[in-house]
């Protein structure tokens, strides 16, 4: 993977790490990627929603791991030897938190020009797609650009509220 120069602000292009889930390709802002590692056993957290698999030790920090397929309501899949965890830095309210997302495998880092990004089609249920930043064609495939802050961040913030709420 090549790491390119950093762009500041809303630049004309930015770099995106693409990964595969089933037959779909997704992308996340490379600047948010902390680490990529192989899948390993995860410690379960009581009362967590089903797409939160548990936590892992990431270089001394306790990081929650989310199954992205479950979160995106895709078909479940078996974890194989090439299943990968992408560790992302996510904005949760005022704080930055680390999360790991389980994906089938990573692809390339691509340069995405802002001009090429098209808006996601309005399917009528905005809540379900507000984590999609846009769609961009890359080498004949369509990459779904994810806004991880909305996808994982808001989720987890509500999660800790639920976790205490459920038991209360």
């Amino acid at each position, binding site marked *: 993977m090549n790491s390119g120069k950093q762009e500041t602000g809303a630049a004309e292009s930015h770099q995106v790490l693409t990964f595969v889930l089933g037959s779909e390709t997704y992308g996340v802002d490379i600047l948010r990627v902390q680490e990529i590692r192989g899948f390993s056993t995860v410690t379960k*957290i*009581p009362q967590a929603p089903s797409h939160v698999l548990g936590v892992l030790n990431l270089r*001394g920090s306790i990081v929650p791991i989310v199954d992205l397929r479950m979160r995106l309501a895709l078909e479940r899949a078996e974890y194989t030897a090439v299943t990968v965890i992408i560790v992302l830095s996510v904005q949760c309210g005022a704080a930055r938190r680390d*999360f790991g997302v389980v994906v089938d495998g990573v692809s390339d880092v691509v340069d995405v020009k802002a001009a090429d990004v098209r808006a996601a089609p309005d399917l009528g249920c905005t809540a379900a797609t507000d984590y999609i930043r846009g769609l961009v064609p890359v080498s004949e495939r369509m990459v779904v650009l994810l806004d991880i802050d909305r996808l994982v961040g808001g989720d987890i913030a509500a999660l800790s509220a639920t976790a205490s709420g459920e038991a209360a």
Partner: protein
Amino acid sequence: MSLDLTQFHDAFFEESFEALESMEAALLKLDVGAPEPELINTIFRVAHSIKGGSATFGFSEIASFTHSLETLLDELRGNRMAVSVALSDLLLKSVDAMRSMLRAVQAKQPIDAQRTADLQFDLELAIANKNAPQAPASTPVSTPAAAADGAPVWKIAFRPHRKFFASGNDPLRMLRELAALGSLSVEIDAAALPSFAELDPHECHLAWRIELAGDVGEASIREVFDWAEGDCDLSIEHSGAPQAAPATAAPVTTPEVAAVTTPDAAPAAVAAAAPRAGNDGAASSVVGGDSGSIRVSVEKIDELMNTVGELVITQAMLSQLGTNLEGPSADQLRSGLAQLERNMRELQETVMRVRMLPISFVFSRFPRMVRDLAQRLGKQIELKLTGEQTELDKTVLEKIGDPLVHLVRNSIDHGIEKTEARIAAGKAAAGVVHLDACHRGGNIAVEVSDDGGGLNRDRILAKARERGLVDANATLTDEQIYDLIFLPGFSTAEQTTDVSGRGVGMDVVRRNIKELGGKIEVRTERGKGSRFIITLPLTLAIVDGQSVAVGHETYIVPLTSIIESLQLKPEQVNRLSGHGEVFAFRGNYLPVVRLHQIFGIEPRTRDLHEGLVVVVEGEGSRFGLFVDDLLGQQQVVIKSLETNYGHVDGVSGATILGDGNVALILDLGGLTRVTSQCVAA
């Protein structure tokens, strides 16, 4: 080329705050009757150095104020001025003012100019009046002044008529003459003074209530007002036999103290008693910096602690790998690893101690607070401080202050009775509030006790019933009743004073202490007093844990919470409606908590007698934790679950085991809460 001095600002602020603390401590130690020259010197040096520093950095308001302060202190130092309780109060107020000013400048906020100017004027007045027979009366006279020499006290009410000035009379002259007869305490009545615009400056709208203590006859007093006869209302009363001042701490014959009113005398007792009591091995560390120490930033220490934490984990991992190794070098490796483990423990303990500071840093704010509070409430309080050298982790230290403040305020406000009540009950006039700290069995014990009236068991129970916190029919042990005071919204104070008793206190206190991993208990005896006992762990970051297995998951139970582990026979378990499964343990029936149920895990076995029950204590209640197996005991480094995830009931944190996996650390208090939901459902 001007030098950029801003880089030195931080050091100046830090040193100034420290210097102010030593000034405050010295002031509180100061015996007004026999002031130690060394203490006065200390106070002078503080003012001098802050004046110099603030002038250098261009903080002119601070420099100006401190200059006046320094001038006054120089008069004291040179024995050209006498110390008095009023002066000591003024100096303490100056400490407060300087703190505020420094903070304001540090935060680049405006200084409270009015307050500073007023206080500076008071200082200048004191200096100008240094030769006067009495200190400026800053508090209204309300009770008879106690003359040290037992001289009679006259109460004079003097109200000139409007046209008083026209006859060439000047009240000032009369007051001056009275002052020559004895010790004067003057209270002005400006109620009739009209607004500035309406005021005819040739008319007199002021009146005075004067107390004169002196060996004078009424005739001499009347003589002073000879020329004013008919132009004023005058009443002269003898105010009964003078009482000897209860404060023998100020056995001076200077008229200053004689003019001091009784509420003032009490603080003199506090000021004298408190430092005397607290002097045992006390805060000599507060005065200035000792040689042989370095300032280190907290970030560096935290980094150090983190690295040591990582080392602990790595060492555990290596040890684990080493256990199963075979081969020629295996034994050598294992003995090397054992040595490593010993070194690690030592390193850990040393680094932990770096973060530890004596509790005197927290205790030191109490003499001042107690003195002010006692004054405000009109009670006599003696503060005892013991165990100030007991060391705690810096973070614990920072967070233990507020709970202690609340407990002490409570003791003074609600615990200690008013002086008359105490004397009537045969107690000493001054109530004792005792702060103590010591190491006790791997923990820190901090105690706040008083010899006041103790908690009122019946009133607490009644209030709790009233608020629906307790069933009307429930029978509770005394212990359980006293525990009720920690419930939110609970306060039995008849009148909530603005000091405490608003009912938000005790539950917050308990919560804060819990967050530190500690607990608080209360022991009380009606009529005799109360003791609040706080137990805290020595450090927040590392805990001794017992690993337990439930299904494929490993959990850590804090070792200090474990009472016993046992295997139950089927006949030992009973079912109790509303309580689930219970078993007998040391004369009580304890509930069984099935961890696998709460956490939703598939256990190895569901039969109680095939697994193990670990009897634990969480937040005062005991229960049996049902697990599959006991694994090892080890020290674990506590990692936060909340940093990246959030709070989970029943889990206090996580740790990384030797094999690199994450194990959750159980929060037993939290589990009791979760359990009660489970049972109810």
